[in-house]
């Protein structure tokens, strides 16, 4: 594996990630109001930063937040139901 962290550290980070993801899902309505159609980075149950594109968000995270950005939940905030449907692939081989 590429990871340099111990299982205990990974476990702790994943637990934090799960908590932050829950926070995003529970606070989605207010996130829509502030950041609809944007990408947000969430850490410790708060918005670290946001941007219109993933490229802009990554630039901000890399320059301003470094390791914190690495641990953040990155989500695109859909202002309305995205209505995703089935996956279709052309000429795919299993």
């Amino acid at each position, binding site marked *: *594996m*590429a990871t340099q*962290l111990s*299982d205990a550290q990974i476990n702790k980070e994943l637990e934090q990630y799960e908590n932050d993801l829950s926070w995003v899902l529970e606070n989605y309505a207010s996130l829509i109001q502030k950041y609809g159609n944007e990408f947000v980075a969430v850490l410790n149950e708060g918005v670290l930063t946001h941007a219109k594109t993933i490229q802009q968000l990554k630039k901000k995270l890399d320059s301003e937040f470094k390791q914190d950005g690495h641990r953040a939940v990155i989500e695109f905030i*859909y202002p309305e139901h995205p209505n*995703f449907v089935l996956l279709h692939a052309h000429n*795919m*081989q299993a």
Partner: protein
Amino acid sequence: MRIICKRDRYRYIRLPLRFINRQFKIDHNTNFCIDTGAPYSLVTYEQAIEWNILLAQLTPTPGPHSVGGIECPGYYLENSVMLFRDSKGKLHPVAVNNIVVLGSPFKQPYKPVPPLLGDDILRQFTLIVKSDRHGGDIILTDEDIHINFPSSH
């Protein structure tokens, strides 16, 4: 093991996990959308950017991919690992020998699609989706679940 999934606002099912790939030094927490209708799993273009995946270094898939209303090229990312964290806090590695990474969508602008956990990985587990009146929990497990059906005559 039992892994508890989450539902989002639009009732898509999310599974938090850690994605690891040595080739691109990826070691990130992320979440995938469980899609029992998808024959294979997908890493999104946005994840590729976030994780610095150099698509030019990957083998292209034979054809494009249409998902969530967008069409994109695809590339194979080899030798990755997903780490699942179960309800007791134990980590479970799942080898992902090949996963499709989406390239930049052909038509711009577009709405991002979520990463998908499809049948290539889900087939190793049993997915339990409880009814709302029974709590609505969504559990991914490697346990052998026995349900006795009445025999048909």
